[in-house]
């Protein structure tokens, strides 16, 4: 599993299609993410961004096209091993409510049978700005929304994955907390250099955090570009209107 578990962490989707009954979620999407790169998937509800994200850890089985992680087709990889090698953060955190913070964060190292899941959990908690002395033994319900998201990020990072998938990780937070977490995220980026795919409906957030931004609409990618380029050269009316609505132009 070296190509998956260790560095570098290249992601590739080629002509990926997925439909749920009559609804088309992905309509032949292609996207490449370089090792260490942060790509934001932006779009409205139903644009297919979460579906695309979940193809990369095989939580979604595409109907057509290929998805590769470090050159290997996802469908040839044991899904359990694949998921244990990829960090994942949900919108509402998805912490196990009956587990302490430490046990939550230690989840993936424990699943992988690492020798020191608790130590790894504590390191990860430090990394996201939650001192383990104060937080390790708490229950998820005792945390604020921002703290819960930090724990969820720590859990995704604890096994030091090369790839991190984040599904609207800051979507449910108030503006101040979100700004704080943005700063933490940018700090983390410099420190751990993991490949990251970030789903968000907030274009400003995408422009602030990502190396490249992919704008999705109706199961297709309208444009993929660096933030600067996207802002100055929107490809088409939809992207331009999105920028306008976000107050970026």
């Amino acid at each position, binding site marked *: 599993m070296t190509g998956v578990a260790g560095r570098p962490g290249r992601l590739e989707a080629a002509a990926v299609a997925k439909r749920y009954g009559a609804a088309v979620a992905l309509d032949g999407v292609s996207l490449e993410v370089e090792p260490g790169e942060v790509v934001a998937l932006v779009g409205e509800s139903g644009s297919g961004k979460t579906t695309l994200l979940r193809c990369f850890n095989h939580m979604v089985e595409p109907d057509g096209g290929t998805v590769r992680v470090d050159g290997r087709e996802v469908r040839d990889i044991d899904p359990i091993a694949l998921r244990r090698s990829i960090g994942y953060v949900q919108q509402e955190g998805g912490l196990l409510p009956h587990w*302490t913070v430490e046990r939550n964060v230690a989840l993936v190292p424990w699943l992988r049978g690492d020798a020191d899941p608790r130590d790894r959990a504590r390191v990860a908690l430090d990394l996201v700005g939650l001192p383990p002395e104060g937080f390790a033994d708490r229950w998820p319900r005792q945390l604020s929304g921002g703290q819960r998201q930090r724990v969820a990020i720590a859990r995704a990072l604890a096994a030091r994955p090369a790839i991190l998938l984040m599904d609207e990780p800051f979507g449910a937070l108030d503006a101040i907390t979100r700004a704080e977490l943005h700063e933490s995220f940018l700090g983390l980026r410099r420190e751990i250099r993991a490949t990251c795919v970030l789903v968000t409906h907030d274009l400003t957030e995408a422009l602030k955090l990502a190396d490249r931004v992919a704008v999705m609409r109706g199961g297709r990618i309208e444009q993929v570009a660096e933030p600067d380029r996207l802002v100055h050269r929107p490809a088409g009316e939809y992207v331009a209107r999105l920028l306008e609505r976000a107050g970026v132009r």
Partner: protein
Amino acid sequence: MTARRRRFLRGGPIPGATLLFAVAFGMLGSAAEEATAMAAAAQDPATGQGGADVVVASKPFAESFLLAEMFAQLLEARGFRVDRRPGLGATEIAFRALRTGGIDVYPEYTGTGLVAILGEPASSDPDSVLRRVRRVFRTRWGTEWLAPLGFENTYAIAVRRETAEEYDLATLSDLARAAPALTAGFSPDFIGRDDGLPGLQAAYELRFGSTRSLLQAVKYRALAEGGVDVIDGYSTDGQIARYDLVVLEDDRGFFPAYEAAPLVGPTLVAERPAAVAALTELSGLLDEAMMRRFNERVEVAGEDVAAVAGRALRELGLLESSAAGAPAVGAGGTRDAAGLLSYLWDRRTTLLRLTLRHLLLVGVSLLLAVLIAVPLGLGLERARAGAEGTIRAVGLLQTIPSIALLAFMIPLLGIGVVPALVALFLYSLYPILRNTYTGVRDASPEAVDAGRALGMTQGQILRHVRLPLAAPVIMAGIRTAAVITVGTATLAAFIGAGGLGDPIVSGLALSDTRMILSGAIPAAVLALLVDAFLALAERVVTPKG
């Protein structure tokens, strides 16, 4: 309480110490052991004296209790050991138990045999009825009607004296005239039988203002207090005299002959002629006046069934005056509420034993239900397509009336603990299954999704996420089932499985409120204790956080 009465009330052959041991160290083992013992007893080809116990049963009303106790004491006086199973559910249950060897003898009425068991039209000629049931019962099931005891206990339609005067009622034809203005309270048995209400309505063109279903035990009181105006009773009921009721004459000869006789099972007939001979000693010795007097002592004066039975046998010259089983005074005269505590205290040993038996029935059936329903619920969560259908099918079991369910099982499982356990088990399944499935299905979808996305296997998700998060809901199902089962287990008395239903059934049959309470109060306390115990268990299995 006399030793005789304790034996009368006891549910089965497990002594208290064995039961304690069984509850503490393995309830399943004990039930199996008793099942084996029961089966052995049923098949034991012992003959004459010193053989297996003669199993004497009754149906759940006072006269049946009294006659059965007379059979039992007579057999004991002739050297037989007797196992008493009073108060078996109803005709259906008692007769199935008889022909499948679960019991050896019980008092039955020829008219009941003809109409309720054979499904033939009623007849008012006693001799032709007896000839008919004798022949058919013998060839079809090998069961034998011994010579009748000498009295008829046919249906009697009774009204309050004021009602009779107000409407000028003396006969059932008179009643047909007044019926639209009256409310009738009839036992479920009577309402359903061809020789009961349907036939009566046809014969007299009777139409009551309204008809209610009332249990035998509450009918007379309901009539006396004006809740209903007309009831069905039995011509030998002691309560008729107690409430100064008027019995309306059956002027068109509708009610069939109901001669009382011992109905004896195939094993006793074939292999224990001496026991059969002892039972025939009673033939022809009783009459209706006598029976009404004996019944009144039991039903109205509240005297001990065993004491009344013993006195009756001595009066008939079948027991010597100095013979055993002669408790001087019955329980009469102390039926007030103040006496309840001392009544309970006097019976503490019996009640403890009945409570332990009850706990055994509840514990084993509940344990089996948990062992089946929880895994099934978890399995259905993985196969959701079939889930609702399966759960509904199990839910249908809940709609089968318990007496019907028990009756179905007698040919397969006999009477006693085993069919009771099976019935209680079946009734416990639904709440546990439903809660397990729903709890596991609806357990925090975000947490389940996170577990999956981070690489938990299905088994790990079940064990570490779904099950702990569903634990409170599953426990709620188990607690619901437990409390319901404590209540339902009182019905076990109808098939001779013992437990706290014994004093309830006997008390209902004998109109003895204290006796009813001596079963109902411990049952209620038991329900609370079982629930409290399971609340503790819930705290242990429910995750923190």
